[in-house]
């Protein structure tokens, strides 16, 4: 990347609440700028690219380098660094922010500041980023840009009077945004001749190139042939290629130096070696200390994944292995369930992460899965002084061996309009929330602060929040350690047999209600069998709830003449097909989706 001075580089990200227009604005910025500087165009970099090798690579993070010719006549390189938009990926967000020097804050002109906006801005400010506000969707009839500008100044406390009033959709005033990026976001600093110090903010696995490390060079420089060292994982390698991110492509270049954003490939085989947040340096001439903020990412949510067809176990293992190449946060280990056979206990950053993985397994690897209810990681302190981290309820030691248990909690911020404050407080109360205060950010809106157990929010909290506030509440949280709690294991017995895959850990105070709802739900899910099927919820040997699936009494087609036969066959085929989606537990057939039913126990 010869010839580009630090003063002409801008490294930034876009932060926004969901649906406030982050990706649309990113598209506009890419559209209005170019791929290469004029000098690079002369050297015809594109001709050197091995296009064949690029095929099939999709850049996971939409990090992109574009070139903008500003009003001052100079060319600027923009590195737009993508940030994942979900609380599951909070740590990744913080690492992406650390790779930036500034952030564009997109706020919807009608909706104003939301909880997620606040959380993201605070995170950006924590990283000393200059935040440039932009008011989007000003073309909407309900837009109130003046009010929103005031809100940004009052609530967030940043200057917003000259925020561009844009419509990312129509392209209105995008030029103002580009100019403000040049003027308001500082150029990077860093000494190109210092020892290498680069921040890894993402990585992905490519079958041809091996692991591709996305990084921001803070100090020093790196080029092909350099030896490198990952300071936290200790992995060493030799650089094969460096480059930057074209529009959806990897464009190799000679070197990356302080202040730039780009990628390094170094014949690394596993993304585990290149953890997000780690520092890349030179083993020959190492920097004095790693960049601050590195954390090993631990899964927060666990569930069992089983192939619907037991014969597909090996396929599932292969698929998980492949996914893990690209996703260091995904963990899995084999487990066996009496009800479901052979499968894997998998760890995820959160429920969204779980859903993404589940969907990819089903779509990309064509696997039909049975998923057990997700749970969090409990700490079980045994009377013998041992502590175990429990990820599978079935492994809970006998109660007589347990001294006490702890569960993870989160600090939650919920932003809500005043008519729904009561309803949301009720919800938090039901979910065992500890009220920690409230502040009004304007007359009609407040932020509620709660401490909530993680296991109360991983299932359907977000849905409940939305339905009880008619959509007027937004929510953000961060992990806040562990707290001691009265927890019990709730077992489900179907036709008097315990179904291990349905057991879950629950707070003693809500066990009865959960047990009752679970039985009701299962009663709906389990079709009638030839005989009566009792469904029971039990803590230890004590049954706390019971429902009964009545025996099948009547299932008959009255008429079947010449014209009915094909239809009748389709009906029978459908019934038969439905049976295939069942799991035989004892002599009861349980539909596979019943194993997920614990997820949907909240009020309908």
């Amino acid at each position, binding site marked *: 990347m010869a010839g580009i001075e630090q003063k002409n580089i801008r490294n930034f990200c876009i932060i926004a609440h969901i649906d406030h227009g982050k990706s649309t604005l990113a598209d506009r910025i890419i559209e209005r700028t170019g791929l290469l500087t004029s000098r690079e165009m002369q050297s015809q970099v594109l001709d050197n690219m091995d296009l064949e090798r690029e095929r099939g690579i999709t850049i996971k993070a939409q990090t992109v380098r574009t070139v903008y010719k500003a009003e001052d006549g100079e060319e600027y390189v923009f590195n737009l660094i993508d940030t994942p938009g979900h609380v599951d990926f909070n740590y990744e967000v913080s690492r992406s922010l650390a790779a930036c020097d500034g952030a564009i804050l997109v706020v919807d002109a009608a909706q104003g500041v939301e909880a997620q906006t606040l959380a993201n801005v605070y995170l950006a400010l924590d990283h000393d980023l200059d935040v440039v506000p932009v008011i989007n969707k000003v073309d909407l009839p309900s837009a109130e840009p003046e009010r929103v500008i005031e809100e940004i100044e009052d609530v967030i406390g940043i200057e917003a009077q000259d925020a561009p009033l844009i419509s990312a959709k129509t392209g209105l005033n995008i030029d103002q945004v580009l100019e403000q990026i040049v003027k308001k976001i500082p150029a990077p600093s860093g000494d190109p001749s210092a020892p290498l110090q680069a921040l890894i903010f993402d990585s992905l696995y490519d079958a041809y190139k091996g692991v591709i490390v996305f990084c921001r060079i803070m100090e020093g420089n790196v080029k092909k042939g350099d030896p490198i060292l990952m300071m936290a994982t200790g992995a060493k390698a030799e650089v094969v290629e460096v480059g930057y991110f074209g529009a959806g492509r990897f464009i190799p270049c000679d070197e990356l130096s302080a202040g730039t954003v780009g990628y390094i490939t170094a014949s690394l085989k596993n993304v585990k070696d290149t953890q997000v947040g780690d520092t890349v340096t030179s083993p020959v001439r190492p920097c004095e200390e790693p960049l601050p903020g590195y954390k090993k990412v631990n899964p927060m949510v666990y569930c069992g994944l089983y192939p619907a067809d037991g014969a597909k176990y090996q396929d599932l293992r292969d698929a998980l292995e492949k996914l893990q190449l690209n996703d260091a946060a995904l963990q899995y280990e084999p487990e066996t369930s009496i009800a479901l056979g052979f499968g894997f206990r998998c760890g995820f950053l959160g429920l969204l992460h779980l859903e993404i993985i589940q969907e990819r397994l089903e779509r990309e690897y064509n696997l039909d899965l049975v998923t057990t209810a997700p749970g969090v990681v409990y700490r079980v302190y045994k009377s013998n002084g041992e502590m175990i981290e429990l990820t599978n309820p079935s492994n809970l030691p006998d109660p007589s061996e347990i001294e006490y248990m702890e569960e993870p909690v989160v600090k939650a911020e919920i932003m809500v309009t005043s008519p729904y404050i009561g309803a949301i407080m009720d919800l938090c109360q039901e979910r065992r929330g500890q009220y920690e205060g409230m502040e009004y950010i304007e007359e009609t809106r407040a932020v509620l602060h709660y401490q909530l157990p993680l296991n109360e929010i991983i299932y359907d909290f977000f849905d409940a929040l939305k339905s009880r506030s008619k959509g007027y509440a937004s929510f953000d949280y961060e992990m806040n350690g562990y707290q001691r709690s009265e927890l019990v294991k709730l077992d489900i017995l179907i036709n008097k047999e315990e179904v291990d895959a349905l057991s879950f850990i629950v707070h003693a105070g809500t066990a009865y209600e959960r047990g009752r709802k679970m039985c009701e739900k299962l009663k709906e899910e389990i079709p009638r069998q030839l005989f009566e099927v009792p469904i029971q919820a039990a803590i230890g040997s004590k049954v706390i709830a019971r429902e009964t699936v009545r025996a*099948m009494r*009547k*299932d008959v087609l009255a008429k079947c003449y010449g*014209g009915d036969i094909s239809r009748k066959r389709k009906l*029978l085929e459908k019934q038969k097909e439905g049976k295939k989606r069942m799991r035989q537990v004892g002599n009861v057939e349980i539909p596979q989706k019943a194993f997920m039913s614990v997820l949907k126990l909240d009020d309908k």
Partner: protein
Amino acid sequence: MTNLLRKLDTYREMAKDYQVDTIFIGGGTPSILEPGEIKRLMEKVYSIFSVEADAEISIEMNPGTATKEKVGEYKQAGINRLSIGLQSAKDEELKILGRIHTFEDFLRSYEMVRNEGFSNVNVDLMFGIPKQTSDSFVSTLKKTAALNPEHLSVYSLIIEEGTPFFQWYQQKEMVLPDEEEERQMYKGAQEILWNYGYNRYEISNYAKNGYECRHNLKYWNMDEYLGIGRSAASFLDKERFVENEKREVLTRESLMEEFMFLGLRKMEGIREMDFQKRFAQNVDEIYQNELLKLVDNKLLMREEGRIFLTERGIDISNYVMQHFIFDKE
């Protein structure tokens, strides 16, 4: 009608290979046809097909649309079996079903039919009608059986999602008899009709001895039939088809499936010998596990080379029959 006659002509060549022993004129209400039309139709049929002398020739009629003139014409045209859609002897229930006739109308039609010399008459009845009670159904059964028709078809009303009746039924928030009540109605029908001398020979069909509907038995025995007219279904040479629609060639597996689930509708069930004859394989070679399980669960019985549904098996016959469907990829 002109279309129908033209269509019949197209079968002239094929007709040479067949002897026709049953004819059924139905689907909708043929009794609304103008006088003379049935006569024209039957003349055409006789001119094209070789119809056996003792063939069973049925026509459906609605009590509201029957006239002496029409019934006389049927007789002249060689029709020897009449099927009357009564459904219920209670006018309130008929109204709920959207029928235009009353029980009075039916009685008049029935009388007329008998007077014209029809000695093989079927009456269709229905149970599970919204608001129907066991008592009203029993009364319908008794009133009808007392007239001594040779054949009775007794169906339960099935409200299928997506039909106009379904919407209508939802809007009116009608209460249907519950599953258990319906089951009792079904059992009640069998008992009462038995006392009146009727024999249940198929899940929904009852007849005096020797009056089993030969035409319908063809469906359950997987014999061949030709349907003529819009949306009329045919089964010829291992192919099921409906006029102007895609033909479905039945595989050997499909034929086995149908042989089982159609044959089991008959109370006498299927004969192992017939299976063997048709497929050159023993039924146990194909369905051993299924048969063992179903017999074990007392849903099927095997006796003297026959396999048939038990009473419990009849109640949940769909469950039983799905066992004979092969796994499909």
